[in-house]
């Protein structure tokens, strides 16, 4: 059974078309992350689900009930906002109890639940801890510093495991999306670009946008052409065609290579791998790994090596490209071939 079903949802702000026809079904208990760049409509979509914005067209069903025109309080939802939304004039207890009192829960029950919530969480945003069918999160961690963000991400994931409730989470941070989600809906320009499990999106992106959005450092995109079953880069470098990919001779393509799939070469190349000489231009150690920039196919690309594999710019290395993981993109449609 699905807890949330959105059909043909549109949202206009005057002439601005923020959400352009979204269909989304979220099964019970699933953690769905809506991710995308600023202005892609992810927050608008969430706010429309919550009833804080009115839908311009389409329907929203929560728990099998059409709530498109229902008030926020009649939708059986709880929501966490980017800013803490704590009432400064109330003490901690009253802050937690606010939502329960607003729902006219008996005071003995309020007391019991407030104490349980306080035990479970310990900090901010507690007053949303009410029994709801659908939990909505609107970039709840983006105001926190890096350390606390990591801790809270773990807490949210644990909360989801413990409560087993359906959660919808909006973020622009792809790491948060990857780590938290059962399923990611990647939004672009008011539409869902791709919907699927995090690793599906990472490994089998449907478009250049998805390929570029997920993963850090970003995927390298190299213009190339297909000739005689090989990928020819601008400077004439020849790479083997990724297995199972078909493209007609002479077709212009964009080759997508993740930095993680370019390594320092070992003794011999594995099947589907290509080895090439290159010169290091820039070294950025991150601790456990090191990000290096080097020229390939006429542009500068980024690769990720193990920590001590390179030390300084100017170093001559042999690199190993895993072409089995590469993606080919049609530059006309930006779709992955």
């Amino acid at each position, binding site marked *: 059974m699905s807890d949330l079903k959105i059909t043909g949802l549109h949202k206009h702000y005057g002439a601005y078309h923020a959400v352009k026809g979204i269909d989304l079904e979220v099964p019970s208990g699933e953690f769905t992350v809506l991710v995308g760049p600023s202005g892609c409509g992810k927050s608008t979509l969430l706010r429309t689900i919550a009833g804080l914005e009115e839908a311009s067209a389409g329907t929203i069903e929560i728990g099998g009930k059409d709530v498109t025109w229902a008030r926020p*309080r009649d939708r059986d939802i*709880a929501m966490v*906002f980017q800013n803490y*939304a704590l*009432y400064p004039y109330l003490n901690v207890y009253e802050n937690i109890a606010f939502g329960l009192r*607003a729902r006219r829960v008996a005071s003995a029950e309020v007391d019991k639940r407030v104490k349980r919530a306080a035990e479970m969480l310990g900090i901010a945003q507690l007053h949303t801890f009410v029994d709801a069918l659908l939990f909505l999160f609107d970039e709840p961690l983006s105001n926190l510093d890096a350390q606390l963000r990591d801790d809270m991400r773990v807490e949210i994931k644990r909360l989801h495991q413990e409560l087993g409730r359906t959660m919808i989470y909006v973020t622009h941070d792809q790491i948060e999306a990857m780590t938290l989600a059962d399923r990611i809906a990647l939004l672009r320009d008011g539409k869902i670009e791709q919907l699927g499990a995090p690793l599906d999106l990472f490994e089998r992106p449907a478009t250049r946008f998805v390929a570029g959005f997920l993963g850090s450092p970003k995927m390298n995109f190299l213009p190339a052409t297909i000739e005689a079953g090989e990928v020819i880069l601008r400077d004439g470098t020849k790479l083997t065609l990724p297995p199972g990919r078909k493209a007609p001779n002479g077709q212009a393509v964009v080759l997508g290579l993740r930095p993680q799939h370019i390594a320092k070469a070992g003794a011999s190349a594995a099947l589907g791998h290509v080895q090439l000489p290159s010169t290091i231009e820039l070294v950025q150690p991150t601790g456990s790994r090191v990000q290096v920039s080097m020229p390939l196919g006429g542009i500068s690309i980024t690769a990720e090596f193990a920590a001590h594999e390179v030390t300084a710019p100017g170093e001559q290395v042999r690199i190993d490209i895993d072409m089995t993981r590469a993606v080919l993109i049609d530059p006309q449609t930006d779709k992955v071939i």
Partner: protein
Amino acid sequence: MTTVPFHRRKETKLVFRYLTAASLVVIFVFPIYWLFAISFKTPGEIFAFPPVWYPKSIQFNNYAVLFRDGDAKTVGNSLVVASVSTFFAMIFGTIAAYSLVRFRTGGENLAVWIISQRMMPPVAIVFPVFLFYVWLGWVDTYIGLIILYTAFSLPYVIWMMRGYIEDIPLELEESALIDGCSRWEVLWKVVFPMARSGLFATAVFTFVFSWNDFLFALVLTRTEVTTYTVQVTHYFGGQSNFWSKIAAMSVLGTIPVFITVATLQRYLVRGISMGAVKG
């Protein structure tokens, strides 16, 4: 040749500063002191020359006369019309301001139009209002003055509360809406407590405006609901002025405002500075 040591120069500067401050205080406080002093003086002391700087003994005769003649009731009238109209203006004004801010009622122009009403000189409407009130039978009634003061204070209240409400994070209200509050509950449980300082500051000013009004009270009252500002003018006579009554009545008229401001001072300072940040 000797030079003045640095610390000595600093001391001189400080002494000069204190002297300036003290003389300014005297200039500003003296008229108020004089008013209070006269209200406790006997007629002989009031007209004595050279002036009597302080009354020989505190006597309340000047006040007793006001209460005996029923003149003191006008302070009560002022209190009733000013506080009731402030109450209604705050309620309606805050609701209107909320609507302007959160629902963009009337767009940008409505808010500006509302405040422009405040710029109209009261004297321009006082006679049309008088004729209208005669027709309604509202001249010299509480309801007449209360409605007028409420209407007249509304633009100010709306304008001020609009600024304070804009400062309330939208998330607090949305969170309350999702948690199960209705719009009215949001107003009562979130907006009012969050804007408390602004509410009090605005209420004090609204109260003082109504309290100090003279023009409308003069035209729209006769005997029943005369306010103290109008009553004071009755003591300025053709042949002589009743200084003792003028002083005692003025003191009576000052006390309620003084008490209001003193008790709400905490909110007043915070409220005014809040408003100062946001236009």
